[in-house]
């Protein structure tokens, strides 16, 4: 549940983002977006299926998905925040205006949550700064996990 609820939020955002990226002025990104979009649709469908299965499942599964959603809620507003690079890329016609995706994203997510019998938590305080390199304490643990093998066995190969 802690992986499927963020995945459904992210995949919904990513699908909308890629749809717009298909019109990028950058040809490489256009190709990348058109290709990725075909796969992201499966990811969104998969994650949404799980949110519905959990929300519309047992009392236990419903409580768990609600907790997962509430845990992730602080991180959602940053989907629609921009930094200087985003602004530059938007002016150059490379990416879309990220803030404009919010309405469609709300609708996509709301449809899934309604079917799952869940309520979307109110938008509250949002964690911000990731794009500027300011992270929460979670990053240290994630990096430690990902670097563990290489640090323990320098030069390790399969």
């Amino acid at each position, binding site marked *: 549940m802690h992986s499927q609820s963020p995945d459904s939020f992210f995949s919904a955002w990513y699908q909308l983002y890629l749809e717009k990226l298909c019109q990028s002025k950058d*040809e490489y990104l256009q*190709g990348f977006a*058109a290709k990725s979009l*075909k*796969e992201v649709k499966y990811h969104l*469908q*998969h994650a949404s299926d799980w949110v519905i299965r959990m929300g519309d499942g047992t009392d236990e599964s419903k409580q768990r998905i609600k907790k997962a959603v509430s845990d992730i809620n602080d991180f959602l507003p940053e989907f629609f925040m921009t930094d200087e690079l985003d602004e530059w890329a938007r002016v150059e016609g490379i990416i879309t205006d990220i803030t404009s995706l919010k309405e469609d994203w709300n609708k996509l997510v709301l449809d899934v949550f309604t079917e799952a019998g869940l309520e979307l938590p109110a938008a509250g305080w949002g964690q911000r700064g990731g794009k500027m390199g300011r992270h929460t304490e979670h990053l240290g643990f994630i990096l430690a996990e990902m670097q563990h093998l290489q640090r323990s066995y320098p030069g390790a190969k399969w």
Partner: protein
Amino acid sequence: MVNDDRWNTTEILHLLSEVYDPEIPALNVVEMGIIREVKWNDDTLEVTITPTYSACPAMKTIEEDIGEILREKFIGQYKVLTSLSPAWTTDWMTDEAREKLRSEGISPPQKGSTDKSLLMGKIRDVKCPMCGSYDTSMISQFGSTACKSLYKCLQCLEPFDYFKCI
């Protein structure tokens, strides 16, 4: 300078059909539709490939295997290029490739990858590769690899992979 002894592109395609997909060893890269173009640019052979599913771990191996077979046969200078557009689609798999998938126990992708009902898991005609029944149901959208869904046959009760269309 054109060297008349060099392999022509048909011969090279024939050679490349000995390179197999490490994830699905029954299929070679030509019948998968991974090889997009083979051409000589002066004295350098350019082989253009396109990735199947993003981040598919098989792609790197395929690129290396192509290099290996070209070196083995002393083809000369070569480059393996990657092209993203047009994006690979399961529609490019040959009928022969589909039949091979089926005989390997993998239900081949439906044709017409843009059909939304296929995507939404409402596929009515995923055929069991074991007994041929259409009475099948999806267990999970993602199976043994990202490119496959896990199904079960309600007739012979065997589980099987379905190669998703994209």
